């Protein structure tokens, strides 16, 4: 028997770590991993609330979140590869100009 708030607090901690990863790191790939961590934290909160209310709708939302995250990773990594071919770097500071 675990209070639901513990699960939600764990999700909040993981979300914060993911957000700080996005803010602190300069490797674009690791920033992407931080975004994945935030999505995972939200999924944990969804599943915890789905269990508390005994409703599987929360679990279906997690299903959709995982699908959208997969699509996001496919497009994002293609973008990173394309940027790498022009800039020869995955440093987020290299992508700081709006020239074509």
């Amino acid at each position, binding site marked *: *028997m*675990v*209070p*639901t*708030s*513990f*699960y*939600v*607090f*764990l999700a*909040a*901690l*993981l*979300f*914060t*770590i*993911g957000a*700080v*990863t996005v*803010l*602190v*790191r*300069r*490797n674009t*790939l*690791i920033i*992407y*991993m931080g975004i*994945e*961590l935030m999505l*995972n934290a939200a*999924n*944990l909160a969804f*599943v*915890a609330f*789905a*269990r508390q209310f*005994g409703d*599987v*709708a929360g*679990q*279906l939302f*997690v*299903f*959709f979140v*995982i*699908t959208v*995250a*997969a*699509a996001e*990773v*496919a*497009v994002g*990594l*293609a*973008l990173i*590869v*394309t940027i790498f071919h022009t800039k020869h770097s*995955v440093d987020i500071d290299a992508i*700081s100009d709006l020239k074509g």
Partner: protein
Amino acid sequence: MSLMLLFMLMGAVALAAAMGLLLARNAVYAALFLVLNMLALAVLFLSLGAPFLAMVQITVYAGAVMVLFLFVVMLLGAEVLPEEGGPIPWQKPLAFVLGGVLIGSLSWLIFVEATGMGRILPPPADYASPQELAMHLFQRYLLPFEVTSVLLLVAMLGALVMVQVERRRRARQQESQGS
């Protein structure tokens, strides 16, 4: 009681793996820490009565998505970057302060404001079986399901087009250099 023990153990593993992702210098290590984090979350999903989601988490997230990440990291050969310096010197301290503010306000919200949250009990045997999930998915959520399939198709085409445009551009460059 055993549920509490499992939660503490897997929560500690998930938090340690997340900190590893935040602090790892090498992008390959960061990806492997994220895989560990996802596996710990899959065990937590099992304890919350979501066996199907736990398996999807392992196959789709820890399997497919992270393999894609590792492929790109190794393909680009960009594992380690110099993390010191940068154009804004106060960015990192500010980021940690903002993270502290975020977790502070979230925990105030969870533990002080929303005290009415219930408790997680061991799930009944027939809760959220794959059959039950499928019944809901293909009846109430049929339209979102179809929309996500279109979204996946568009994402696949987008990724292909982006790589294709780049290849054509480089072929043109080589032609103009050759002539």
